[in-house]
């Protein structure tokens, strides 16, 4: 038993090293640029793929061939990071946080297809590292020397990074900029250069982490998202911006993983995220982190108030509804499927908007509640033998209960921390669906969830879905403009003042969280019957990002925004999937472009445009772009 514990500890420490490198890069980049770089897992993956190619080319058996390949891979990715920063990020530093996040997620999609195009869909098995091919016997178990090497790499890198940040001018500048980047600029430091170098450095670290995994595990196309969600956990547990914290957290997570496999092989992921939740409840800003100082949100346009729709917009809404009602008499049958799906996603987007807009709580993991709604319906049909309508009614409660539990933790945090925690909870939900095969069917999902006979025609199901979705969206709208909605927005805009006048801000946010989860659950349940099956992917990160895209594309400022966004996004995606095999790349590139061109979303931009035209006197430009505005 002792030797098993020992072996698992070593295992955990070995896997901690790469995780540390990736998380550390993520943390440094966030510290200086305030960008949560979703694409950091992609740099990790690129590092691994490039190392595979280079090592194979340079000669895997040769010491220089192998280690040279690893280093060159990291350097190439660092250079790519610099290019990404210069070409894309530089244009969006002024955009709101979530738009930046979306842009980096666009990069994730682009890199996925680039990797697919270059290296193909098969896993790539790397060579073993020259000099580290043997085993040592430690306390009775055989242990690869490469694992021991990795264990040593962690502390060595920690030491090197410590030296870099404490003893060099560049490190001093980075630490200063992490605290107050504007002041660093006013003291004559070229911020652009600093940002580019920080981004390149972080990307290089991630790539090094990926390249070092080469002898350990096969390189594949899913490395990016699995790594980024773990790196988020490490960064949040360790404390944003803290290198030592990232190391401690990486070791903690690595070891929990290793032991989890031993103790609860089915729910290792759940264990990891539970630890994260516990740490965050005790130390909300992570083991070594500190409460972010004010300036974290100082940039980006202030969100305008949420105003009720004007008479014109209401008319447009009614007209759109009429079009949707009459559509079945005009369009071909297969269009009904598209319209059904659109209605469902409009509700999904509206539920997310309810949290993000009036609630001010950005969720990276809203798909969890969508997915739980879908699974709720499927489980009700499969295990309880419920017919469609009762199952539809039951399902949202599963999502609502999850919102009740997860929300309790989430509303204790705010901003990026809250968003990362929602992501973690979504991963728990996903992992449960994925790993609890007996109940959920795991990766194979649950099949045969069909609507009741009376609703099985495309036409009837379309009207059913449309009716439920429109009713739910209107209900959300009523809540937003009811006293509860005003209290919610008061809590978002000035939590302290709202507390002072006696509003229980946290409780209000919690209730909003539950409502949003419930509404997403309705959408999920409708989706389950629509597709006839449910899969864990319904709750995976990309689906959560789809939701974010819809809301942000439409703009958080208006209630109609997310609906427009849902239609725009689903339409775009559908066309792309039809048009090209590399639709992810095109979609990713479009997201990046949209963020650069419309930093306030489609509806937000249209409103601003209308407002500018209405104003008699030439309005001052909203942001720092005098030439553009004039």
């Amino acid at each position, binding site marked *: 038993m002792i030797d098993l514990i020992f072996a698992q500890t070593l295992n955990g420490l070995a896997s901690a090293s790469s995780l540390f490198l990736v998380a550390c890069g993520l943390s440094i980049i966030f510290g200086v640029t305030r960008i949560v770089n979703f694409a950091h897992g992609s740099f990790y993956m690129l590092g691994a793929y490039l190392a595979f190619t280079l090592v194979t080319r340079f000669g895997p058996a040769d010491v220089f061939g192998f280690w040279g390949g690893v280093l060159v891979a990291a350097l190439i990715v660092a250079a790519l990071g610099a290019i990404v920063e210069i070409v894309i990020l530089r244009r969006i530093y002024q955009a709101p946080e979530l738009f930046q996040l979306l842009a980096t997620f666009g990069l994730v999609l682009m890199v996925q297809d680039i990797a697919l195009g270059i290296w193909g869909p098969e896993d790539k098995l790397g060579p073993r590292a020259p000099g580290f091919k043997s085993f040592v016997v430690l306390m009775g178990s055989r242990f690869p020397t490469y694992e021991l090497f990795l264990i040593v790499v962690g502390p060595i890198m920690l030491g090197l990074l410590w030296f870099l940040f404490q003893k060099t001018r560049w490190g001093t500048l980075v630490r*200063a900029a992490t*605290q107050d980047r504007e002041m*660093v*600029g*006013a*003291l004559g430091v070229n911020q652009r250069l600093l940002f580019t170098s920080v981004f390149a450095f972080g990307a290089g670290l991630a790539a090094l982490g990926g390249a070092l995994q080469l002898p350990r595990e096969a390189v594949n196309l899913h490395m990016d998202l699995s790594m980024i969600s773990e790196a988020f956990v490490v960064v949040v547990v360790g404390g944003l911006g803290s290198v030592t914290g990232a190391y401690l957290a990486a070791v903690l997570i690595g070891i929990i993983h290793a032991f989890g496999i031993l103790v609860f092989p089915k729910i290792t992921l759940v264990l990891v995220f539970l630890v994260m939740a516990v740490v965050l409840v005790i130390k909300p800003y992570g083991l070594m982190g500190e409460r972010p100082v004010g300036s974290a949100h100082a940039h980006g346009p202030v969100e305008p108030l949420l105003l009720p729709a004007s008479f014109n917009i209401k008319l447009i809404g009614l007209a759109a509804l009429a079009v949707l009602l009459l559509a079945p008499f005009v369009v071909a049958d297969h269009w009904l499927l598209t319209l059904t799906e659109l209605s469902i996603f409009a509700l999904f987007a509206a539920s997310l908007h309810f949290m993000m807009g009036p609630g001010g709580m950005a969720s990276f993991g809203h798909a969890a509640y969508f997915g739980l709604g879908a699974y709720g319906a499927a489980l009700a049909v499969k295990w309880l033998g419920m017919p469609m309508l009762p199952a539809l009614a039951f399902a949202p409660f599963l999502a609502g209960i999850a919102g009740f539990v997860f929300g309790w933790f989430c509303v204790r945090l705010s901003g990026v921390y809250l968003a990362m925690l929602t992501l973690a909870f979504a991963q728990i939900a996903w992992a449960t669906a994925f790993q609890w095969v007996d109940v959920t069917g795991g990766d194979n999902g649950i099949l045969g969830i069909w609507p009741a006979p009376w609703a099985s025609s495309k036409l009837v199901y379309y009207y059913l879905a449309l009716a439920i979705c429109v009713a739910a969206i209107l209900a959300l709208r009523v809540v937003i403009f009811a006293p509860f909605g005003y209290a919610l927005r008061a809590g978002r805009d000035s939590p302290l003042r709202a507390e002072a006048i006696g509003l229980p801000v946290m409780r209000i946010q919690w209730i909003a969280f539950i409502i949003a989860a419930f509404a997403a659950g309705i959408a999920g349940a409708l989706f389950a019957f629509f597709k006839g099956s449910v899969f864990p992917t319904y709750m995976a990160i990309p689906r959560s990002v789809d939701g974010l895209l819809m809301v942000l594309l439409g703009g958080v400022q208006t209630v109609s925004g997310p609906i427009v966004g849902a239609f725009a996004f689903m339409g775009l995606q559908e066309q792309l999937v039809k048009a090209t095999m590399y639709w992810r790349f095109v979609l990713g590139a479009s997201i990046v472009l949209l963020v650069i061109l419309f930093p306030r979303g489609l509806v937000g931009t249209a409103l601003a445009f209308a407002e500018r035209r209405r104003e008699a006197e030439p309005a*001052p*430009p909203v942001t720092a772009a*005098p030439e553009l505005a004039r």
Partner: protein
Amino acid sequence: MLEIEGLNAYYGRAHILHGVGFSMGRGEVLALMGRNGAGKSTTMKAVMGLVPPQAGRVIFEGHTIVGREPFEIARLGIGYVPEERRVFSELSVMENLSVAQRPKREGAPHWTPERLFQLFPNLGRMRDRPGGAMSGGEQQMLTIARTLMGNPKLVLLDEPSEGLAPVIVEEMAKTILALKSEGLSVLISEQNLHFAGSVADRATIIEKGLIRFTGTMDELKADEAVRAQYLSV
């Protein structure tokens, strides 16, 4: 050396500066005076490019600086000491100084940490102390020292005496006069007429984003109407 004309600045949609204009000569100490919220800090930020001006001209030694980035403006030789001090609290005194270090500049005094420690002996005794663990007065000295590390020709000092004990305020006045004797130009924003009078050659008064008075310190002291209208609380 500095000429400002028709400077307009906004925070979002709020129009704060409505055409500020004044000029400064080499080696001069000019006091920018006015009540709370008059626009003193905003004027300095606009010169520094921290609040990008939407209209107007700012010419520093023949260079037009509107539209340039703060770091470029700093490199031309303008040093900025913000009102809120903004010391890097996790960096030591020495590290705070090193962040701002720039190469020697023609026509401006050259500062090294050692020279600065002669000017601010207190700082020399706490080289390794983190900025966050210093008193308000010490932090104020550190921000000025930090800005001087860039070897500026012109220093924008935003309310240097604010919140300091009378003894320290006196020290501050001496420091400013010492900088003047080195040939530096200093623009200080100030509400305290007594303090301004002890260091400045001229004063310019801003109110609601417009310049209302410009003249020598003696002229201002003599003009009771102006003082009553724009300065008294």
